[in-house]
């Protein structure tokens, strides 16, 4: 069963425009959700987790249990935000699921 869905494989926005990367999850328990990012020629790394409620590099994500969503948002996209973004779910115990990823391109 697909645990994490990222409906957009590719997303392009202009510099300075708002950006939203969508993530929906399927899990009946209490989920822990994360966003990981992979910049060109770099390793996959944690961007943020819902529990910390932090803003990292201007990105925020709110867990909406009613809509089972964890969308990643940034009000003003920058060129350096161009990367592959993965939504991930920790489904209790030791299971960790990644979505298929969204490739974000910020057009100068």
């Amino acid at each position, binding site marked *: 069963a697909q645990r994490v869905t990222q409906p957009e494989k590719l997303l392009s926005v202009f510099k300075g425009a708002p950006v939203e990367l969508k993530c929906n999850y399927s899990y009946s328990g209490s989920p822990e959700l994360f966003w990981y990012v992979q910049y060109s020629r770099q*390793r996959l790394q944690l961007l943020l987790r819902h529990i910390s409620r932090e803003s990292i590099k201007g990105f925020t994500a709110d867990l909406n249990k009613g809509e089972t969503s964890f969308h990643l948002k940034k009000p003003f996209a920058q060129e350096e935000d161009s990367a592959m973004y*993965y939504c*991930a779910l920790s489904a209790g115990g030791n299971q*960790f699921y990644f*979505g298929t990823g969204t490739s974000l391109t910020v057009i100068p």
Partner: protein
Amino acid sequence: EAGVAQSPRYKIIEKRQSVAFWCNPISGHATLYWYQQILGQGPKLLIQFQNNGVVDDSQLPKDRFSAERLKGVDSTLKIQPAKLEDSAVYLCASSVTLMSSYEQYFGPGTRLTVT
């Protein structure tokens, strides 16, 4: 601090051959993960170790895949025999503990091509 190391970076083999991947986690990290990432998909967790013990291997195809972490540090993942559908990037990651699995540090990956 030094990151997670993996070798080789690339490997091309024919189907039915065997292959092994090596991973050296960040020093002091007790938990180690192996992922398979097929082109166009997200990483899929294959197996997790806590020190030298297996925590979860429910998604590891045990008829052909095996992994070990004998001394609780380095780990090897083996495929024997390989199939065409095993072509993927194999990622190793580590975290300080199982409780901090949300913050996994990833290696560069090994790109396997099975012909």
